[in-house]
């Protein structure tokens, strides 16, 4: 009998390596007064954690946002501020 061939593939599942938001050092905070809803942040987000919130503005899922800062860097109106995570 041929050996069973095992390939390390897995279907996508949420939090397969835990809550990656815990890795974050800086938290991206969206200032709605400057946001023009261009969705550039969502396009560039590598973790796909920026989605439309109930108020129609981009909303970040902090459970999984790693705080890389790419959204803040790309935002054309500088509406995203990177705020240090501080233990209260």
């Amino acid at each position, binding site marked *: 009998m*041929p*050996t*069973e*061939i095992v*390939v*390390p*593939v*897995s279907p*996508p599942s949420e939090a397969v*390596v835990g809550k990656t938001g815990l890795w974050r050092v800086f938290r991206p905070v969206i200032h709605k007064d400057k946001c023009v809803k261009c969705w550039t942040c969502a396009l560039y987000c590598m973790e796909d954690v920026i989605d439309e919130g109930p108020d129609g503005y981009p909303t970040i899922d902090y459970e999984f946002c790693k705080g890389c800062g790419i959204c803040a860097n790309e935002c054309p109106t500088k509406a995203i501020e990177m705020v240090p995570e501080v233990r209260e």
Partner: protein
Amino acid sequence: MIQREEARGKWDIITGNHAVAHAARLARVKVVPAYPITPQTTIVEYIADFIARGEMDAEYIRVESEHSAMASAIGAAAVGARTFTATASQGLLLMHEVLHWAVGARLPIGMAVVNRAVGPPWSIHVDHQDAISQRDTGWMIMFVSSNQEALDSVLMMYKVAEDDRVLLPFMVCLDGFVLSHTYQPVHIPDQGDVDAFLPEYKPKHWIMDPEDPITYGNLVMPDQDYMEMRWSIHESMIEAKSVIKEVSAEFRDRFGRFHGDLVWKYRADDADVVIVTTGTLASEAEEAVDVLREKGENVGLLKIRSYRPFPTEDVVGVADGRKLLVVIDRSISFGQGGPLATDIRSALFTYGVDTPVVGFVTGLGGRDITYEDIAKMVAIAREKASARELRPVEWYKLKKG
């Protein structure tokens, strides 16, 4: 090589690299990620030419490095395309990390490696260090001795690699310049005959589908299947030995050519002394065997075609009862000796065969080794063995000593 006359196709006088490009075309390869490096470059140039002329229907991806070439090959093979690339020396070394990923995904990617010395200092000439350095990646590694064998081996190895019992990538290794840029008569088989021998690749074990996304190579913990996956790669590699024998026999039946399977034996059956080597040193050794036989010496040749999987049983079978094995390596495992000699001693010891082994390291960086050199090595080996002066490694043709 055994050649039957009536095979369909056409004869041409071409380089080893041209023969390999013909093999990729005849295998109906669908994706070719290409990055140039001497002495491989003309393989991907010939393939580009085939595609431009409409003689080959394949995606040609001009990548930015060999690392990317192998990564692209993995992506292409994962969606079910028969994939081919070629490299040499530093390019193969740059691929090293990704070679492991191709194996873990169990993708039967085909690659030609045109053996060239590894720097420093820069050398573009023949040496097996590049391929030997990929020994433990899980790629099947086959060395060839002629342009015809290069073409035929690429076709045969796709059939082996895509077999459900194997599913591992392969490299067919041909000596830089000695084959890659040297013209030899080559029989180019008929496309219909190749299609009948090598049907379309249809993966059953897994396939990447954008409509049903999956992750490859995710994190595992020590109690998960990491060790089992490594074991299954080893088991498939062992299984590949019998598949290589089956496929070589089928190729002989269909095309009338036989270059050996895991090994090739030349006048070895009644020999007291057997030369063991690979690549074009093996074809040169056939000449040495003939010369020594004329002088009345009972010498034969065992050529290692398949370096991984290693033909342990064949080596033991040939070595048992002989007076001496003369192993010639064109690479060096620093601090130990010749890689072939080391594997052969391990095989003999495991099976309790006490035939003495004299292992030479020679021909590095393209230093020319002729049949006369091989005959001299046989003479030196006889002296060493009769004086019981067996050492891990003998260097031959050093400028000093």
